[in-house]
């Protein structure tokens, strides 16, 4: 089109490009996530003035889910493939790192990236098969995956079978015992959010979004949809696997029914749906809210079924008023507070 470029058009383009740049910058705020990260990094200092193990545990638990939900979001949010089987990678990461920790005594925190990589490779191979179908068929194939892996893990004696495997407990004083895991999860959460952001703003992310909207159009636009989808699957498995690796050591126990229960994958999905699928801040907000509600209702209503009911009701109400998730709906109506716009 170069021959069409008259001076006038060039000037108009220049103005347009500037307006685009301004529009994008105005809407986004990146100071807030950095501030939160900084606060979380100094939070353990509370231990110096009292016993805040519960706060540390909750934050750690939330960060663990932020890693998983952000990872899930890359496949489920950006690409539009809803997987209910991502806890399989949680288990793979947990068992891989846990076995190495139990036998070679190398901390899972060091092994975590490798465990993530193992999960990613397995995810890549599984993706090659299951990503050929989409919609309900894909969801069912992901559920089948959980069942297959549950049977394998429960019957594989080498990794402890259904009884699982106890891992060594670290020898730090109780006050500081959680901190290595705490920092590991905070760092992983920060990386997961950062990578989501990078992906969303890359050609890869644009392609994934195109796939989620119309796969045939995306393919005929020249996007290698099969490669994109499978890579998205691998990246999301990477984060879930990494979270699983450290989670196992934190619990000092790995057992199939810790990792391979549907609750974990459902939580990942719910967090993304509640916070806003396909947004950067969504999984983070979702993880914080769901864990906060859970704790609140367990504390006030006791550990009966009532607390589950209350959490469910809150979720229903939220989704009635925020059908695209909190961040997604607010962004659509242009009412997203600036500090939540990390996209």
């Amino acid at each position, binding site marked *: *089109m170069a*021959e*069409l*470029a008259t001076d006038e*058009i060039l000037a*108009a*383009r220049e103005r*347009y*490009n500037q307006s*685009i740049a301004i*529009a994008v910058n105005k809407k986004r705020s990146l100071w807030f996530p950095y501030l939160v990260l900084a606060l979380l990094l100094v939070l353990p200092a509370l231990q110096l003035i009292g016993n805040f193990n519960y706060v540390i545990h909750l934050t750690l638990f939330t960060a663990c889910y932020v890693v998983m939900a952000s990872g899930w979001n890359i496949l489920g949010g950006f690409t539009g493939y809803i997987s209910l089987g991502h806890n399989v990678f949680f288990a793979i990461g947990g068992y891989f790192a846990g076995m190495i920790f139990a036998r070679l005594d190398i901390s899972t925190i060091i092994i975590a990236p490798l465990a993530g990589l193992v999960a990613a490779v397995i995810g890549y191979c599984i993706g090659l098969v299951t990503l050929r179908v989409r919609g309900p068929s894909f969801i069912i194939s992901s559920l089948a995956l959980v069942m297959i892996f549950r049977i394998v893990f429960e019957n594989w004696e080498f990794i402890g079978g259904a009884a699982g495997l106890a891992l060594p407990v670290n020898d730090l004083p109780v006050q500081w015992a959680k901190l290595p895991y705490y920092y590991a999860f905070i760092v992983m959460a920060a990386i997961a959010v950062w990578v989501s952001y*990078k992906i*969303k*703003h*890359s*050609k*890869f*992310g*644009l*392609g994934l*979004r*195109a796939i989620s*909207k*119309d796969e*045939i*159009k*995306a*393919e*005929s*636009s*020249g*996007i*290698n*949809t*099969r490669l994109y989808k499978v*890579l998205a699957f691998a990246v999301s498995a990477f984060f879930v696997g990494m979270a699983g690796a450290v989670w196992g050591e934190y619990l000092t126990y790995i057992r199939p029914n810790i990792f391979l229960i549907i609750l974990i994958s459902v939580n990942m999905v719910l967090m993304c749906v509640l916070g806003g699928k396909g947004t950067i801040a969504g999984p983070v907000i979702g993880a914080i809210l769901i864990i906060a509600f859970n704790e609140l209702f367990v504390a006030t209503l006791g550990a009966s079924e009532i607390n589950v009911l209350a959490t469910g009701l809150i979720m229903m109400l939220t989704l009635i008023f925020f059908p695209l998730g909190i961040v997604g709906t607010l962004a659509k109506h242009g009412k997203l507070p600036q500090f939540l716009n990390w996209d």
Partner: protein
Amino acid sequence: MLEVKELSKHFGGIKAVDNCSFVAEEGRITALIGPNGAGKTTAFNCISRTMTPTSGEIWLDGERIDQFRPHQITARGLSRTFQISRNLADMTVLENIICQSKTRGWKDLLKPAMSPDEIDKAIGILDFLGITRIAHEDGSNLSYGQKKLMDLAALLMSDPKIILLDEPAGGVNPTLLDEIVNHIRRLNEQGLTVLIVEHNMDLIMQLSDKVVVMAQGKVIANGTPDEVQNNPDVLEAYLGGTSENTE
């Protein structure tokens, strides 16, 4: 340029495209016409590999392309639009267009989604089509005609050698139709090869250098618009030999 040899596509017992052969010559506008159900869109789908042909060969610039996947065909310079405009909702027009930008493969995955160069180019194309003002609209909020223009813009983003237009004038008003005809003509003058499926006979007769007529999956005539218009087989297929109306 584009050569279709003995292309067939069967759906069970139905021969939607039956042993079809035609050529789209370089730098020309070739029209593919025929009554409803003649197999035009199916032929299109087979060429762009949205469907897998049952048999036959498709050659583009001396390279056989019927074994490739759609994105590989697009990368080789053949882009298409869809009969019912497919656009990506919740993405701006600019993003819709830049999706089709020619940067593929591993090393491009982590490049920024929309580089300044690409934005420049996309805006240039929108300028050319006269729809710069909708650059930031959501792809799903556009009117039908705007979607058609956006499709055309997206095509151009991939620097195609040949474009396949599936009913570019379907459902658009006469003013916009003129506009679209002009755009196609101007693009063609710049050397772009065009293969077009269309029902609007006026448009076809004005625009095309060569017309291929299909009926019931077969090519029944092939020639200049004038030749085709006077071909008894075509009249028979189109009009059943009774009506005088050319629609």
